[in-house]
């Protein structure tokens, strides 16, 4: 990994009227890493990314991309970055190939159309109109349009939102191949599995601020435990007794139940069950899973990513 930052922004603020979408956000993305902005809808991810992409003007703060600023080097920067917007709509009645040739013509240098088509597995769809593509194919074409200039830095804003599992995996493979060439990726997502799989580092964003930063593993470990027990009972449950149990790092109320982050499932689970039995409460649901970035978000904010 390259030690010079590909993106650096400080104290970024963006106001829409009286609404503050981005509220003093700091970010540093290293060259060659895949960096994820993870957060719920409305957290300010897209606004942040569009400022970094030079599409929006920040209200305050500084932005440096590939060592340049948008004010001075916009044209040169455009040649060096690739962008896939959230919900890209390309021209309906242009074919896949025509679209790529059009986008390719804007860049001084870039890959051959043929190799791009192959890369995004659209070779047999080259003569198909954009409107006739499936959601996954449209999204792959959008990514291909971001790659036509062989960018050093790729921005992907929610690249897999609304796609079926197979299309998502296809896109992930594509992003991994891009990353393997030592190029930098900044992606936003509200899927924690996507962030965990693709990202070297993740910033969790909420209400326009970075509330946690680190590798997915670091963030999950910051919970203290790596397992999560969730259960529901008939009626409300108190938190206090659960916090007192050995090996429990965090307790969150959820509807008629609790979510406990624990170190070792096999030690804590029997204690929980025993307590409930003594208290005469009947379980209505019980599940356990390895802690994810979702649990990190819940732990930090008390809300789910997709509330």
């Amino acid at each position: 990994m390259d030690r010079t930052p590909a993106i650096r922004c400080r104290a970024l603020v963006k106001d829409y009227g009286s609404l503050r979408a981005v509220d003093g956000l700091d970010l540093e993305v290293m060259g060659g890493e895949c960096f994820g902005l993870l957060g719920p809808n409305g957290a300010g991810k897209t606004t942040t990314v569009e400022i970094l992409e030079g599409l929006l003007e920040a209200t305050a703060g500084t932005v440096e991309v590939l060592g340049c600023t948008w004010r001075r080097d916009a044209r040169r920067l455009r040649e060096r970055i690739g962008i896939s917007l959230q919900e890209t709509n390309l021209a309906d009645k242009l074919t896949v190939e025509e679209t790529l040739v059009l986008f390719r013509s804007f860049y001084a240098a870039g890959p051959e159309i043929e190799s791009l088509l192959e890369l995004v597995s659209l070779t047999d769809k080259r003569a198909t109109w954009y409107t006739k593509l499936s959601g996954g194919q449209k999204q792959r074409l959008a990514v291909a349009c971001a790659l036509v200039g062989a960018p050093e830095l790729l921005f992907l804003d929610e690249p897999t939102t609304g796609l079926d599992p197979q299309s998502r995996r296809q896109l992930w493979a594509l992003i991994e191949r891009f990353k393997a060439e030592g190029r930098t990726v900044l992606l936003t997502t509200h899927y924690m599995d996507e962030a965990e799989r693709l990202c070297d580092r993740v910033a969790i964003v909420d209400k326009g601020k970075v509330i946690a930063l680190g590798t997915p593993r670091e963030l999950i470990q910051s919970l203290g435990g790596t397992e999560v027990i969730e259960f529901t009972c008939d009626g409300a449950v108190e938190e206090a007794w659960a916090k007192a149990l050995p090996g429990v790092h965090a307790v969150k109320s959820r509807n008629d139940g609790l979510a406990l982050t624990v170190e070792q499932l096999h030690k804590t689970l029997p204690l929980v069950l025993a307590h409930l039995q003594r208290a005469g409460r009947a379980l209505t649901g019980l599940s356990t899973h390895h802690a994810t970035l979702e649990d990190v978000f819940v732990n930090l904010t008390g809300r789910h990513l997709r509330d």
Partner: protein
Amino acid sequence: MELNRTTEHRHPLGQLSLMRFRIFVREPAVLFWTYGFPLLLALVLGSAFRNRPPEPVEVAVIATTGAEDCRDALARTPSVRVRWLNAQDARAALRAGKVSLVVEPDRPRTYQFDPTRPESRLARAVVDDALQRADGRVDPAPVKDRLVTEPGSRYIDFLIPGLLGFNLMQGGLWGVGFMIVDMRVRKLIKRLTATPMSRADFLLSFVLVRALFLIVELPILIGFAHWVFGVPIRGSLLLLLALGILGSLVFAGIGLLLGARPKTTQTAAGLVNLVSLPMIVCSGVFFSAARFPDVFQPVLHALPLTALIESMRTVMLDGAGLVAVAGQVLVMLLWGGFCFVVALRLFRWQ
């Protein structure tokens, strides 16, 4: 991943123009409105207003005894159709416009008619002439009529240059203004500005493709008018084409201005209609702008569509040269230049 760089390169302006061209020809509805509709309109209006043999004047004679001579004299006159009605029915027919004139045959002979209706004034002249002759008047000087109906003075001749102008305006306002807003709404403009694309290339491609289509559009309409209706082209065809290109650039500029800001296609459609409908009515597409009161004439002549249509009409029908239409050319240049400059300043790229 083979992101191996090649520098093999196609010109972005060419590609953008190609995009506009493809989007255009792949939209059958747009093709119809551009090419089919004006032809259809010319055909329908041309046949509706084609020159018919002159209509006879409709006249009522009030049925009284002793008026038969009067009735028969009118019935013998070829350009008069006469009805024999009682006084009440005759007045009703006059009010309803079924007859243009009522004759009360008692002396002194009385003509009832509405002098604001041209056909009534015509009827009075024709009827009085016929009845005076029947009463024995002899004309002091002999006269002879020679009837002339010449291409160039018919309604279809007037209409075709109007339709050309109308078409160029619609093409510019919808084809540029509305399309730009449509691309903005679909965030296509935003996506394109996220590339190193030159913004001038983007805007220029709209204008280029408009001009390109015009080169097809103009000969089709003029050829159609010429071969089907015998509309004359008395002036220079080259000058006509040049005026068409200028007009289409002017309306591309106005379209650009209308499309510079709106964030929804509804706003854009409203703006286009707001601009085009008054001009369709006032600029002499379907009837001469000279019919409006004199106080409005300076305003009407300053409208870009009036300038375009009148210049094309004078070149086609009167065989005018460039000097004769210099005023209109200047009006168009001013409009075009103003709109382009303002549009570029106001344009909302994101």
